[in-house]
């Protein structure tokens, strides 16, 4: 097991006295293949079976396009809201002292820990026309639950911790001397924040944005209760997959899933590129 595959200068791994490399790597790869890779490859394979013409007609069907637009458009808006408020929350938690700070800090992780279905019914009960918030907005003519706006609200909930938790550690590392230097050189506070602090935080904010966006695109549980799920209006792409599956229309379900997978992997690639760029440029991973 400790014999590395060594062929004329090329080594698969560096020699080490620790045992168990073959066992643990072999088990990990086998488990990964069985649980994740082979099933995922099945989707791509099934989708390839469809043939290009059929795939294209499903992917460009008006209902599919509207569902994809709801998922990606909603996720985009939600991620932008989260960038603004997530960065603000991170800033307040890192820089200021106020009562209950530790509790609020812990609460930020709630969307990670709270099951999505629970979040879904809770948000719906708040924003429904007879709910705590919905009843306040109803006289103003604003409807949130059962509209695309409701979808965005759920996506904001689910994406918030991604921005806060990627920006917060980078903010904690900022060297205060940089700000002092800017101040002694005559910069006003807003100039320091805009010209000195924000550029350094940009990679972390961008990563947080991409993570929140990717999560919101695929989100299902917290969205379907509040969305109202009106076809062509507030129907999200994951729900369309479920509907097609319930109709035993596996071809359509697979086609929509393939489009979503392709865009998600593109996002993953972008996140990795941002992190590699930030490591080169700033010397740390976001």
């Amino acid at each position, binding site marked *: 097991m400790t014999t590395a595959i060594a062929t004329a200068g090329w080594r698969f*791994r560096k020699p080490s006295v*620790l045992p168990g490399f073959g066992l643990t790597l072999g088990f*990990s790869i086998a488990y990964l293949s069985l649980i994740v890779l082979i099933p995922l490859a099945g989707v791509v394979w099934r989708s390839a079976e469809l043939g290009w013409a059929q795939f294209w007609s499903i992917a460009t069907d008006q209902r599919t396009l509207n569902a994809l637009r709801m998922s990606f458009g909603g996720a985009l808006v939600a991620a932008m809201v989260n960038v603004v408020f997530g960065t603000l929350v991170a800033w307040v938690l890192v820089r200021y002292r106020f009562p209950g700070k530790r509790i609020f800090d812990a609460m930020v992780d709630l969307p*990670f820990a709270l099951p*999505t279905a629970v979040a879904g019914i809770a948000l719906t009960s708040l924003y429904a026309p007879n709910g705590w918030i919905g009843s306040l907005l109803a006289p103003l003519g604003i409807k949130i639950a059962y509209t695309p706006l409701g979808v965005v609200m759920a996506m904001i*909930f689910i994406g918030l911790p991604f921005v806060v938790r990627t920006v917060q550690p980078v903010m904690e590392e900022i060297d205060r001397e940089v700000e002092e230097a800017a101040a002694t050189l005559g910069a006003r506070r807003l100039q320091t924040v805009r010209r000195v602090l924000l550029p350094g935080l940009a990679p972390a904010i961008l990563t947080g944005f991409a993570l929140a966006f990717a999560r919101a695109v695929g989100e299902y549980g917290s969205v379907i209760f509040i969305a109202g799920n009106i076809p062509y209006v507030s129907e999200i792409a*994951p729900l369309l997959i479920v509907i097609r599956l319930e109709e035993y229309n596996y071809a359509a379900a697979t086609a929509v899933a393939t489009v979503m997978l392709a865009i998600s992997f593109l996002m993953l690639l972008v996140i990795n590129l941002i992190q590699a760029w930030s490591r080169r440029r700033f010397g740390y991973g976001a």
Partner: protein
Amino acid sequence: MVLDIPADRNVAPRSAVTESPLTRMVLIALALGFLLLFLVLPLLAVFVQAFAKGVDAYFAALALPDSLAAIKLTLLVAAIAVPCNLVFGVAAAWAIAKFEFKGKAFLITLVDLPFSVSPVISGLVYVLLFGSGSLLGPWLTSHGIQILFAVPGIVLATIFVTFPFIARELIPLMQDQGTADEEAALSLGATGWQTFWRVTLPNIRWGLLYGVLLCNARAMGEFGAVSVVSGHIRGLTNTMPLHVEILYNEYNFTGAFAVASLLALLALVTLIMKTLLELRYSRAGSLSTPH
């Protein structure tokens, strides 16, 4: 311009390196208002709605046979899925953190893959793999093995969505710790297993506990993936989150929020234990947040 940075925190700091008290108040109010609106209020709503018709109605809703069956199934699924991913997480972290080999970064990306897949697609992959139209489907049917719309499918989908949690927590932690402790143990004559049980495991125990906690919270709360493979058979293949959905769609709000309140309680316990672990184990101990 003289730069006097106040040593005492009670003295208002100069506005050149921080914001004016008014700006600070406004920013804190905005941030806390946002957190109250999006996090505290929904959590509060769950418990208020659950007890809206009184304590008796709450416990009556939980004591229904279908609710009890859902709770049992959820516990069973988590009891299988979490240990599976625990063994994988430790094995993967050992191989990735303790050794240098080609293609490591790619392997880490693959481990993270389930995080970037929509939960619905995580369920769909198993429907395509084991469903009636698949290669395996007819063989499974002829041998009387039921995976979809039964417990094995639910367990598989749960393992898929919680796949990276423990590995992700352990890899950076074990990379930071290096291999010096293990090398010392081995040179003193310990066997590989002794080294793992007596040296490595005690070193990673808090990170491991933290990973198990997060993995468990997600395993018990997973909705999308499980919903696709479960078949929604009441009392048989409904986990707690699916039961919440069914009760809610039947306008049984007290029942839905009562079951939901148990899941919310689980989330709160997870958050409290996470905070305690972070305190105990210091922020520098590289407890990262999962993606």
